[in-house]
């Protein structure tokens, strides 16, 4: 149970941070309008020149290895839904560390996610 929770925490923290870094990098690259393979390749070449993408990829690799570890000891229909708790962690982090004003609607969404994750935990077969 200790390793399961440690791996789930690593998936959530490293995964969310990695996604935000990749999002930031892709906004720097700009909108993709041409989907021909050569054009997509050029976009990827531009993307790998942005520092944020490398940090994002490193964090994503950590999250990926943690996911592999978690999947070796628990069901995929348990592991992946439980990682949705990242929405609650992100909202709490935004409120506490970034001074964001979280709307009632967002708190309701976060509460639904927490209830759902709790039910998934309770419903472990």
């Amino acid at each position: 149970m200790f390793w399961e929770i440690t791996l789930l925490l690593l998936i959530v923290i490293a995964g969310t941070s990695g996604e935000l870094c990749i999002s930031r990098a892709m906004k720097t690259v700009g909108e993709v309008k041409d989907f021909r393979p050569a054009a997509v390749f050029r976009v990827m070449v531009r993307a790998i020149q942005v520092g944020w993408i490398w940090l994002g990829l490193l964090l994503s690799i950590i999250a990926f290895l943690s996911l592999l570890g978690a999947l070796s000891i628990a069901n995929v229909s348990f592991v992946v839904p439980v990682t949705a708790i990242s929405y609650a962690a992100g909202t709490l982090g935004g409120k506490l560390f970034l001074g964001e004003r979280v709307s009632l609607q967002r708190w309701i969404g976060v509460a639904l996610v927490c209830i759902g994750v709790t039910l998934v935990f309770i419903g472990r077969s």
Partner: protein
Amino acid sequence: MKSSSNLHAKTALLILMMVTFGPLGNALLGKGMKRIGPITIRALPDLFHILYQVFTSGVIWLGMLSLLMFLLSYMLVLSWADYSYVQPSSSFAYGVIALWGHFLLHETITPIRWIGVLTICAGVFVVGYTHPRTTEHN
């Protein structure tokens, strides 16, 4: 008008690819890792042995290919669409992963876990449809 509908069409297509390939990749990784069994690392050679098992598994490579397709779709869609739009739209992935788990991996999913998964989908959807900026710019 035409460019707006084109934008919607390509966004919908890429979100559909994300919702398909992401959960499929996770399901295939789950299948591969279940074949390998629980990981126990007591010494460094154990780690190399596990990595060897992981990277010589065809199912895990298929899973990684599927996740690569997911990542590519995700990066492309984020180049024009808002994160706060893409994120709720992809909330259905949590439902899809439970379906893959049930039908592909034959996992037993209790009714209470199904309700939990659907509640998570609803919660993620609601979070995503809130205003993306809650702080004022000076």
